[in-house]
């Protein structure tokens, strides 16, 4: 950068102007352009400034770090993981949102970082050494290298109509109580729009604008809320209406009856956010898969497939502030061509502790050489993968995991071998896996119990990787998924359908097998259709129903690890029932003819299949006589029981509403109940309270930046103390069983209350009291670690509360009617 431009840059920053004085035509040029001023981008800017490298930090809003800016006021921000050292020009330690932002503002200014606000980057073109960044304002900036640090929050969707930059058009609402006596139009039909509109209507005249004819996208509670608010005239709703233009004080609308002009004081549009992926792709960066969780692939120096274009922070798959800041620092070093030891080196050294004094890079190389499934990973991915993993060096004969454990981690064999006991009844029947192979993928895929016991061999070195890291990897490296599916397919067919049949005999079936996915409610096959295949359910579950007297009667529920569709093939008849996915379900579709051939050549298998078929027919006869039982199955499935591994069911004909279950929950969990006994639906006296289902594939885990949600060997899904209170899990759980809560205050003991009445008594203290510290997520952990199991069930005096696992649903249902 020339001296003149530097002067200009400084003048510009000082003057806060967006335009260059005089010569707009000259594009500014920098060595590094950083897009996005979150912790990642800001830290990069800080380090560039510190080194005196010419740089610009482009931020679309009017402040630093928009994601954190938008946290709730006073939120306590955590600095996890504790063991990871911070490496940045800026400081960061746990504290309130205000402290942290204030600190960063001061340090950014102190370090003379060249920040440019209101500078949304709309396009990036060019190549290494000569990138061109086009801003939304039309300005052009050129740079030798670009650092993308735009996070994952995406951009709020705008209305896209003329005049929408009127100052009273807003896309967010922090505190509805701030406004009163205004005429406000809320645009949108989702949860946020409904909640805002209803809250604003207390003090304002509110009109909610819906492009469609109904509110279909919102959750149940909000649907009821908006319907009753409209009916009662609390607010007005204009259906089938969309924005056309904004003039100060007037909102021009397109209604079914033509154009309307509505005088307004304020417009609040809640249209959701556009995920950043499209923008990122438009810059030439490729994603390995179409999965929404897929991450762009980057090299060990954070460089994307476009040379000179770097990706750091949440966008690159590092969802914590400290990680983002470290990468900001490192990326500047990498761009300058310096090879520095990554900050996570101490973490890796700790993981490799077990192996004695070895060099980290050597171990990484060995792993990549020995384990083919990991060979396609970049160094960065492998490092990340290994940090999350555990190295095991079990003694020969030691148990790695047991059949029926609920663990869901994935194992790769770096050295030695393991023996898989595939037959529960005969420990001698084993399959040996060698160096380079992997196991544990079945539990990972199905979300259910382990199907075999694994015993360590001589000199065996294993990598155990948690589910979350594995899923991240599957989503970002296509080859890993392919390899895993291919191997798993054979194993699944063997385990779920043809135990004891040699691999060679299965070749025909494996050959024609395909992987199919069904959304909730999707039909695998229809009653009456010709039978041309068998489905092996590898994750999720299905219901079987028959049309009787014009009504669909559910006759069975089949969880993962079973097959359906064999009846038509064995009997050479059309499909006798319809099979539907109860939840998101993945099956292996086996070709019908290949399946028949397999049965023909294998008498033992044929017998087993026939026997199962007999069972099913008998069960059908029973269930067809009890349509109510079928409705009960359907009801339970609608409540998420189809994906549950353990669910609390209350028999309302026994429940005396004493709430001892809730009190027990609070008493055994630091004074906060994770169970809402009364809330939740009831059918045929079976009540499904608001309480965790311990899903096979927990939705809550999906998006936990702190990796605080886990599944224990017994199946319970629990949140540990790493929780940073971001609330993602609360939003992601479809059954609303997680809530954010402060720690409860201490109470006097039980006898003090019984004898003298001191304190609020057993159960959650719902009175007003002062709070300390941060809110964190709380949910049922099935009383993990408490002797005797779930306290709610133990504390129910009448036996109304029980916990049920999927294999028991059928007994439950058939016993009741």
């Amino acid at each position: 950068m020339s001296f003149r431009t530097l002067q200009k840059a400084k003048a510009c920053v000082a003057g806060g102007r967006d335009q260059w004085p005089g010569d707009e035509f000259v594009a500014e040029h920098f060595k590094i352009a950083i897009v996005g001023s979150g912790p990642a981008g800001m830290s990069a800017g800080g380090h560039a400034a510190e080194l005196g490298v010419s740089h610009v930090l482009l931020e679309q809003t009017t402040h630093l770090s928009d994601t954190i800016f938008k946290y709730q006021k006073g939120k306590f921000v955590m600095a996890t993981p504790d063991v990871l050292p911070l490496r940045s020009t800026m400081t960061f330690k746990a504290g309130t949102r205000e402290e942290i932002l204030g600190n960063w503002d001061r340090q950014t200014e102190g370090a003379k970082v060249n920040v440019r606000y209101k500078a949304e980057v709309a396009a990036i073109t060019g190549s290494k050494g000569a990138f061109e960044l086009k801003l939304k304002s039309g300005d052009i900036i050129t740079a030798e290298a670009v650092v993308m640090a735009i996070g994952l929050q995406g951009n709020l969707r705008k209305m896209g109509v003329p005049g929408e930059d009127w100052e009273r058009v807003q896309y967010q609402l922090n505190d509805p109580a701030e406004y009163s006596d205004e005429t406000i139009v809320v645009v949108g039909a989702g949860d946020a729009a409904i909640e805002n509109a209803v809250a604003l209507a207390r003090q304002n005249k509110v009109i909610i604008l819906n492009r469609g004819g109904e509110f279909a996208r919102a959750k149940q509670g909000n649907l009821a809320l908006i319907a009753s608010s409209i009916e009662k005239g609390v607010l007005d709703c204009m259906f089938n209406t969309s924005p056309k233009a904004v003039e100060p004080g007037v909102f021009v609308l397109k209604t079914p009856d033509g154009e309307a002009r509505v005088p307004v004081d304020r417009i609040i549009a809640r249209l959701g956010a556009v995920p950043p992926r499209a923008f990122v792709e438009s810059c030439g960066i490729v994603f390995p898969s179409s999965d929404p969780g897929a991450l762009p692939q980057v090299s060990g120096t954070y460089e994307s497939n476009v040379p000179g274009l770097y990706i750091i922070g949440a966008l690159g798959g590092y969802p914590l502030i400290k990680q983002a800041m470290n990468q900001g620092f490192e990326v500047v070093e990498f761009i300058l061509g310096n090879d520095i030891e990554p900050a996570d080196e101490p973490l890796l050294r700790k993981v490799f502790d077990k192996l004695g004094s070895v060099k980290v890079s050597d171990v990484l190389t060995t792993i990549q050489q020995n384990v083919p499934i990991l060979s396609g990973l970049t160094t960065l991915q492998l490092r990340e993968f290994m940090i999350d993993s555990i190295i095991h060096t079990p003694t020969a004969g030691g148990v790695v995991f047991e059949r029926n454990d609920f663990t869901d981690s994935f194992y790769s064999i770096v050295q030695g071998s393991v023996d898989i006991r595939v037959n529960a009844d005969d420990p001698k029947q084993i399959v040996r896996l060698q160096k380079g192979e992997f196991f544990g993928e079945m539990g990972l895929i199905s979300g259910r119990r382990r199907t075999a016991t694994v015993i360590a061999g001589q000199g065996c070195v294993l990598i155990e990787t948690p589910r979350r890291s594995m899923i991240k990897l599957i989503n970002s490296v296509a080859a890993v998924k392919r390899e895993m599916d291919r191997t798993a397919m054979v194993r699944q067919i063997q385990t779920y359908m043809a135990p004891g049949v040699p691999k060679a005999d299965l070749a025909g079936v494996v050959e024609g097998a395909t992987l199919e996915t069904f959304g909730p409610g999707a039909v695998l096959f229809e009653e009456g259709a010709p039978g041309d295949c068998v489905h092996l359910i590898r994750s999720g579950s299905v219901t079987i129903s028959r049309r009787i007297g014009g009504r669909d009667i559910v006759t069975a529920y089949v969880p993962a690890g079973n097959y359906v569709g064999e009846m038509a093939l064995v009997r050479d008849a059309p499909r006798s029932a319809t099979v539907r996915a109860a939840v998101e379900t993945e099956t292996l579709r086996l070709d019908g003819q290949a399946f028949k051939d397999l049965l023909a050549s294998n008498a033992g298998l044929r017998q087993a299949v026939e026997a199962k078929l007999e069972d099913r027919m008998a069960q059908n006869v029973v269930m067809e006589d009890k349509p109510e039982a079928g409705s009960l199955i359907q009801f339970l499935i609608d409540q998420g029981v189809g994906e549950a591994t353990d669910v609390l069911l209350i028999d309302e004909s026994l429940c005396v509403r004493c709430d001892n279950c809730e009190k027990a929950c609070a008493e055994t969990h630091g004074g906060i109940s994770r169970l809402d006994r009364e809330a939740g639906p009831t059918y045929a006296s079976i009540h499904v309270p608001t309480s965790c289902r311990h899903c096979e594939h927990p939705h809550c885990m999906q998006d936990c930046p702190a990796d605080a949600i886990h599944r224990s060997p017994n199946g319970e899904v629990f949140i540990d103390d790493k929780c940073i209170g971001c609330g993602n899990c609360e939003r992601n759980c479809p059954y609303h069983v997680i809530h954010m809560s402060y720690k409860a205050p201490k109470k006097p003991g039980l006898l003090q209350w019984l004898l003298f009445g001191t304190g609020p008594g057993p159960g959650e203290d719902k009175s007003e009291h002062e709070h300390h510290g941060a809110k964190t997520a709380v949910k049922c952990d099935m009383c993990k670690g408490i002797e005797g199991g779930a306290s709610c069930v133990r504390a129910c005096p009448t036996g109304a509360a029980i916990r049920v696992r999927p294999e028991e649903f059928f007994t439950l249902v058939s016993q009741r009617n």
Partner: protein
Amino acid sequence: MHQSILVYRSYRYLKWAALLTLASVVAYALHNPHFPPNGGTWLGYTLGTIGALMILWLMWFGVRKRRYNEGKVKLEDWLSAHVYLGISLIIVATLHTGFQFHWNLHTLAFGLMVVVIVSGMFGVFAYLRYPQLMTANRRGQTLRQLMMTIAEVDTECREIAVKLGDTVNRLVLDSTENTRIGGSIWRQLSGKDPDCATERALSKVRTEVRADASASVKDESRLIVLLGRKSELLKRARRDVQLKALMDIWLYAHVPLSFALLAALTAHVISVFFYL
């Protein structure tokens, strides 16, 4: 799967209780003291001690119920045992007395015990009978939801009433402001409000309408429908409160009387040692 306290674990505790009763009866039949049988014989002492220990154990249930961290045994085990062994106590204690009842402190203890046991039996009846009725009466709603629906109907009633003149307006206002659900124990248990403002409003508005054919009939008949609906909802809410009260009320006899029993029993034991 779900099992009520009576059938719990295939009647395990019924069997225990039956065994205890049988043993006491057999012992009593075989026992042949010099005096007529009473609490002072060796068998009397034995049965008395067993009875007293059982009473302490039965009362301990109140504490155990609230010790949520305790042990593997489910509370249902405790209650099932509490019920069956509690009933068998009648036999054990009666055999202890040797049927020597007189107007004295000892018999007072015995009487209290019987009352506690009988209240417990009502409790079991209530626990098995009312929950079902409660579920049926709620029709899938929680009490809170029921209250919210009532509040909504109230608002709508008021909006219409404003258009309908003073008398109607006052009646409706009375109905919305003086809606009572629950209240005193008796009111809760009766499940009714003898002086229900909504009923009053409903019947008066009906007569009004009949008298006045001219006015906005549409609004008035809508109001009648709404008040009718509210009265229906109120009935359900009151029934809900009634059922809950029925499930709770007996404990107010059961628990305090067991403390009285404990006192009387202590006095009994002390007195027999002093005056023997």
